[in-house]
């Protein structure tokens, strides 16, 4: 589904991602872990078109995706959440989720201006669906709230709902459990599992090892922008390099 070949990205002198290659098979959950500043978020930004790669290739569904704009990639079935919240604070919570469904609705400006038939109906359905999604990620009680009224953790979940609203083929989650306690993390874990079971390929960045180990079919470890290791959860857990660079003794 996703193939990354010799991908690099530099900012001035900083080599944020260096020569990274890996493959994500459809229908699996793939984790990317690594120390802070290892380049995980940068990798996500490259895959989703927010940054243009300095070199290397990205293939999505066997077609080139490197340097394409985010909205086109979204059209091709990618969706993601952000480590640094990107929520529209000028809108209500549910509208934020509905933005996620943008591509599935009539997006023409003219259609909007003249309220072409069909639009209102589709929109109402979309609203119901968004409400369901909010319930699904656990922010149902904010159904009528404005985004600016939500707490940090709630906003994190709202982003997941927005990403899901796009009905993506490939979902990238950047630290979905940050700011959640163990119980809430377990909920999110179940949620991701459910999403994956519905056939969505998931790539996630997370520092909560329990969640990562429980969920991942495959793990990629980055360190200083390079690939440090790759393998199943069990393999990674035992990898001495990974233990030294990232996990530490306790994990």
């Amino acid at each position, binding site marked *: 589904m996703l193939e990354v070949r010799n991908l690099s990205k530099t900012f001035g002198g900083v080599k944020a991602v260096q020569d990274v290659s890996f493959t994500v098979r459809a229908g699996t959950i793939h984790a990317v872990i690594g120390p802070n500043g290892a380049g995980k978020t940068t990798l996500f930004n490259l895959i989703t078109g927010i940054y243009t790669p300095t070199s290397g290739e990205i293939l999505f569904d066997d077609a080139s995706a490197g340097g394409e704009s985010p909205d086109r990639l979204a059209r091709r079935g990618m969706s993601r959440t952000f480590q640094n919240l990107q929520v529209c604070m000028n809108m209500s919570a549910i509208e934020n989720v509905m933005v996620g469904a943008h591509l599935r609705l009539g997006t023409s400006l003219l259609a909007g201006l003249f309220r072409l038939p069909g639009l209102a109906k589709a929109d109402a359905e979309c609203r119901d669906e968004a409400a369901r999604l909010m319930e699904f990620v656990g922010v149902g009680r904010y159904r009528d709230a404005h985004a600016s009224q939500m707490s940090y953790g709630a906003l994190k*979940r709202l982003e997941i709902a927005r990403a899901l609203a796009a009905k993506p083929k490939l979902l990238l989650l950047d630290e979905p459990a940050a700011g959640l306690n163990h119980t809430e993390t377990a909920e999110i874990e179940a949620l991701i599992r459910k999403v994956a079971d519905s056939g969505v390929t998931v790539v996630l960045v997370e520092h909560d090892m329990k969640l990562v180990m429980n969920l991942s079919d495959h793990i990629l470890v980055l360190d200083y922008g390079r690939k440090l290791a790759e393998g199943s959860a069990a393999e990674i857990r035992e990898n001495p390099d990974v233990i030294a660079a990232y996990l530490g003794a306790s994990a």
Partner: protein
Amino acid sequence: MRETVLEIRCLTSHYGRIQALHGIDLDVKQGQLVALVGANGAGKTTLLRTISGVQPASSGAVRFRGEDITRLVPEKRVRAGICQVPEGRQVFSPMSIEDNLRLGAYVRRDREIEQDLERMYGIFPILKEKRALPAGTLSGGQQQMLAMARALMGRPKLLLLDEPSMGLAPLLVEEIFRVIRRLKAEGITIFLVEQNAHAALAIADIGYVIETGHTILSGPGPELLHDEQVKKAYLGM
């Protein structure tokens, strides 16, 4: 009996008409590490913001070392020694990392700033490496370290931590908790909001559990770890 550093009585706070805190009562004694746990939206951040004075209290009182600071402007509270690591890191993005750290010592006039700077670089070497870069270019975890170091540059008497381990790699989480223990050993009073309830309660002298703006439980940290309700709601057991 140790001196009570922070004393909160019947504190309420509102965002517009939404009430986020419903009469919080809470005590933090000199040198103690107090942990606060609660679900998303429980009001933890709001409580810390109210203590720092960036969110107005609607009623009730906040006393710091016996003095009523409920209506004090934020900068005076910082001068009095209350420093916060805010939620969402809040670094000064366009400014260099070193400037960020120096700004942490904004209220200080002593000569030991340079020394403290080195100390922070010692704890977080990556910050030293990137000292001249804009803080906005840092990765999420690196920014979290910066926010922590910046607060420590203020030489707090009371340190308010809003989820300091968020977004940090496991090794660094350990490091952060080590730092917290060390600060406690140095006699700094710490008020810790943490989603990693397990780690937080394990090292806390006192733990408080907050739910929709009410404190519903309190007690010695390790004891709370064995509380069934806490286990179920916050520890995922």
